């Protein structure tokens, strides 16, 4: 599903090299975790995949469902079904959560040549999912993420993810800022989306989240490269032994 081949990328005006030849394949239906020390390029990988300005790919390819992702604008990638759960979700003052999400959903649908979702259907779906994620209905009327706690913002990311039903999901440090109860709610949400035609790339510093969302594969990112790959047990080993072994 997602194929990353020899990906090199530089960041910012300084053109600092952050990714140094990542190769990785996530087949449909699988959940892969990327772990690594601070500064290993985890977040950069998520931005390069989703097409953020200021990140320049100097070598390598990325394909999603057989299509060249790197040629697309950020919003085209989103319409293709690529979703990023942000490490630090942004506040959007004055724009109610529901308005934001309905606008986004219908922009994606339109880009895919689908019919827009009407208000009644949208509301019904949103209410049901909010209940599942224990998000109070009032919160959906408030401007997106404005004044929300760290945990609320993360839960709202999952809510957006479940509303948009993307085909490939990148989660960047989703567990940070979540208490155990919230972590469980979020994990339940993610697990409910696991399906044979959907892939996940979960970026995390700690193993904790992976207790709840058990990955098919774990990759260790170090100095912008995959330093090791293994099954879910690799995460447990890392938790015990730390990243020293993989230090550049």
């Amino acid at each position, binding site marked *: 599903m997602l194929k990353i081949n020899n990906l090199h990328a530089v960041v910012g005006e300084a053109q600092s090299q952050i990714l140094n030849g990542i190769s990785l394949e996530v087949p449909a239906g699988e959940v892969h975790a990327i772990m690594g020390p601070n500064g290993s390029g985890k977040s950069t990988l998520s931005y390069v995949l989703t097409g953020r300005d200021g990140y320049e790919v100097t070598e390598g390819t990325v394909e999603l469902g057989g299509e060249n992702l790197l040629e697309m604008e950020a919003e085209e*990638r989103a319409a293709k079904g690529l979703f990023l759960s942000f490490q630090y979700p942004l506040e959007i003052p004055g724009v109610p959560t*529901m308005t934001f999400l309905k606008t986004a959903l219908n922009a994606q649908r339109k880009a895919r040549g689908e019919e827009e979702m009407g208000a009644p259907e949208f509301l019904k779906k949103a209410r049901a999912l909010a209940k599942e994620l224990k998000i109070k209905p009032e919160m959906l009327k408030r401007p997106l993420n404005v004044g929300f706690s760290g945990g609320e913002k993360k839960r709202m990311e999952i809510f*957006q993810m479940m509303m948009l039903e993307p085909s490939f999901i990148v989660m960047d440090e989703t567990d940070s800022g979540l208490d155990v109860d919230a972590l469980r709610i979020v994990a339940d949400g993610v697990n409910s989306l696991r399906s044979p035609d959907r892939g996940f790339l979960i970026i995390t510093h700690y193993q904790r989240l992976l207790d709840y969302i058990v990955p098919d594969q774990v990759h260790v990112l170090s100095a912008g490269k995959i330093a090791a790959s293994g099954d879910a047990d690799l995460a447990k080993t890392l938790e015990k032994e730390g990243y020293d072994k993989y230090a550049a």
Partner: protein
Amino acid sequence: MTNEVKVKDSIDASTVEGVRSLEADKYKYGFDSDIEQEFAPKGLNEDIVRFISAKKEEPEWLLEWRLEAYRRWLTLEEPTWAMVDYPEIDFQDMYYYASPVKKEGPKSLDEVDPEILEIYNKLGISLKEQEVLAGVEGAPKVAVDAVFDSVSVVTTFKDELAKHGVIFCSFSEAVKDHPELVRKYMGSVVPVTDNYYATLNNAVFSDGSFVYIPPGVRCPMELSTYFRMNAQGTGQFERTLIIADKGSYVSYLEGCTAPMRDENQLHAAIVEIIVHDDAEVKYSTVQNWWPGDSEGNGGVYNFVTKRADCRGKNSKVSWTQVETGSAVTWKYPSCILRGDDSQGEFYSIAITNGHQQADTGTKMIHLGKNTKSRVISKGISAGKSNSTYRGLVSAHRKATGARNFTQCDSLLIGNDCGAHTVPYIESDTPTAQFEHEATTSKLSDDQLFYCRQRGLSEEDAVALLVNGFCREVLQELPMEFAVEAQKLVAISLEGSVG
């Protein structure tokens, strides 16, 4: 139409849809129509003033009024304190009177020049006004006093308004039909000598609207005027007078668009509002005049004097404006809070893009006891534009217990624009409580990326974010106007990023 926008939450989405449905990038309303003009000769002198007055078949007192104003104007100098920069205006190189040639006074819409109706079509007045103008069965009730260049062409719903005793007509008609009201109130809020442009207006004003709401009457519909400049090089000097008698209420809408042209156009209007005891006036403007081309050439100069006098006890005035057009804007809708317990509000969105310059704000002058005022100003600057908020809040020594809250937020888009806030606060009473808050922020790349990651194009994202920024003010607009305003916000910022 109205049903679609019951829920305010749906507005932002409709903005984005609005952007899609409208043509990109070019000023949509840039066209000239061929309607015969009857010009006064170019230039300004006493003869021209007499010509205008004669054309309008005015009484002697009004001609004297104009001449006095003209003589006064000759002694005045153009103000230069505003933070705007434009080439010197040659007042002798302009026309001061133009009107569609009068065939016969139109009694109904059928008699209106089809080309004029066509202009409304081109303007995409897709809201109820167009239905009203088209005479659609069951069209919502909005009375449109269409000002086409200088002469009111058609006034609708006059009969129904008359039932309630409401007078809504062109200023010229009011001079003929209600001279006692005009003489009593004209110039009582904005004196003839008020400022350079106001004095000029007094000398050469063309036409405008007149509204009188009798005591205790809640005006049964929103009153709406579309101003539109249409003759090459014709200065527009509108004159609006609104009187809300005791315990009455009226909501008045003013919207503007102008055709594209090469020359700069001068617009110097006067709006006077008088509010008596327990009465309330809500005045909303959407201004979308030709801002000039991408190099900053052409475009409308908008030097307007708008002022409300809360003359009665417990009276209230609310100004709401969305300013997206004009090359240069110089405008300070103000409230004189004379009556005890009177209230003034000013809600403003000023968007500048390209080379536009806007120096706008308000004056809240507290004279009565326990008077309250509230100012919410949202300035958005993009391109190479400059936007200034200039506001005065003052309390007279008798204005005990006066309260003001002012909030000025500026949003910058890109690196070449400027936002400035110039508040003046004066209090002669220790019991006044004035609060002032101001923020300046930049539209962040992080927010834009977040929106795009969710599937919004860059332009849709900007429109959504800016409408979010303006939300508090947009909510103050009558619903149909709000939808139109949101589209305007989106259109005016096209091409401002990337």
